[in-house]
């Protein structure tokens, strides 16, 4: 019963017209919420969370660095999933989503790299270090650039979307191998602070604002992607009836 509703909803979302209506309902309250949560997390983390006993105040960049890095990774996985969906069902919406996700994901990866460099200066004494995590984030950034370059190079938007989806899917499989290969290669980065399984090595006064800012960045990411997808959708469907009825 629930399953049927879910599959129906899933296939309806694949229809541009339905998706547009859905985003009409969701966006007006989602974007203020995303801004509010991000602002809460950042202000809490940057101003009110306790100081680190080793790194002092410089650790506070974690409240931007970690959300951006995990958002970039999540965005790439989402592109891969959309690529798979597109290979299986050939949904127009999946193509639009890939195109919408790529630039924001690349920006998040760039933010993670820049904040990583800024954080690296006081703690490791260098702006750039060929450390495993920094390097794999750099490669993730390159993977995003590849997807964007492919989309730009193919004139037909549907073909571009499908090609980018396949590339993202291959990239997702590769990202896992890249991560382990680079970790084996050279690591200086501190171990994962957040773990899905097991105990995190962070006190709750720091962990809670971090989780809040992560949620906020994810939501901001989702809002930006929805917005971009809407614009892309209007352009692609400009000749169809439902777009003309909009005004």
């Amino acid at each position, binding site marked *: 019963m629930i399953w049927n509703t879910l599959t129906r909803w899933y296939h309806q979302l694949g229809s541009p017209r339905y998706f547009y209506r859905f985003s009409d309902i969701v966006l007006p309250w989602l974007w203020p919420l995303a801004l509010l949560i991000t602002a809460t997390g950042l202000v809490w983390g940057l101003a009110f969370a306790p100081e680190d006993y080793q790194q002092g105040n410089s650790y506070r960049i974690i409240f931007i660095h970690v959300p951006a890095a995990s958002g970039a990774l999540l965005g790439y996985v989402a592109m891969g999933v959309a690529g798979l969906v597109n*290979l299986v069902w050939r949904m127009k919406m999946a193509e639009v989503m890939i195109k919408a996700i790529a630039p924001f994901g690349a920006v998040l990866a760039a933010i993670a790299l820049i904040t990583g460099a800024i954080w690296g200066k006081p703690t490791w004494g260098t702006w750039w270090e060929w450390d495993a995590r920094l390097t794999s984030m750099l*490669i993730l950034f*390159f*993977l995003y*650039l*590849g997807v964007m*370059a*492919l989309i730009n*190079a*193919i004139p*037909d938007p549907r*073909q571009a979307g*499908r*090609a980018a989806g*396949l*590339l993202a*899917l*291959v*990239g997702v*499989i*590769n990202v896992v*191998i*890249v991560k*382990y*290969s*680079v970790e*084996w*290669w050279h690591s200086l980065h501190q171990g994962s602070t957040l773990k899905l399984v097991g105990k995190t090595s962070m006190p709750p006064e720091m962990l809670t604002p971090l989780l809040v800012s992560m949620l906020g960045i994810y939501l901001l990411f989702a809002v930006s992607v929805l917005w971009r997808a809407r614009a892309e959708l209007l352009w692609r469907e400009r000749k169809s009836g439902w777009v003309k009825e909009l005004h």
Partner: protein
Amino acid sequence: MSFSATLSRELLLAWRRPAEIINPLFFFVMVVALFPLGVSPRPELLATLAPGVVWVAALLAVLLSVDGLFRADHECGALEQLLTAPQSLYIPVLAKLVAHWILTGLPLVLMAPLLGYMLHLSEPAIAVLFVAVLLGTPTLIALGAIGAALTVSLRSGGILLSLLVLPLYVPVLVFGAGVVTYAANGLPVSGVLALLAAMMLASLVLAPAAVAAGLRISSGN
């Protein structure tokens, strides 16, 4: 049936235009020869750089050669025929990859020990370099073919292909060059070689499917 037919066709076509087999090999040798000129001819320094230099040169040589993997077939229409055939595209694509490895990968593999020697690698390291390039080049070709399939119909193929494929080459480079450094320092190498072999097998099994999907996307059906 379709495997051997495609394989013999590819080999025959290449046999009639041998320059295309030689060119990647020359490229490989020239790039490696530039490093002592650009860096320093000091043997101990060259020996440290050698694994990475040989691997990066091999990787670029494969990348440049793989760009033309489907282009001729696309332009003359043979690819369309292959796409409309009732058989699965998987087997002919695999045959093309194998043929391409025999034509461009194998010469690189055979040349790698000589270049290793010229860069003053120790003997055990040269042996490991040979095995590593032998195991790594099929992976490079298989991954490059995915990019080649996606860019086959585009005019600006070459540089776009590198943007798409180079990030995917990172694991092969890391393990391939890493294992040679291990050998040079007298550390055990079998584990990393096994990883390279695993990546080769996985990419040979999975990549033809992705290449087939890419070719279908590029030809617009």
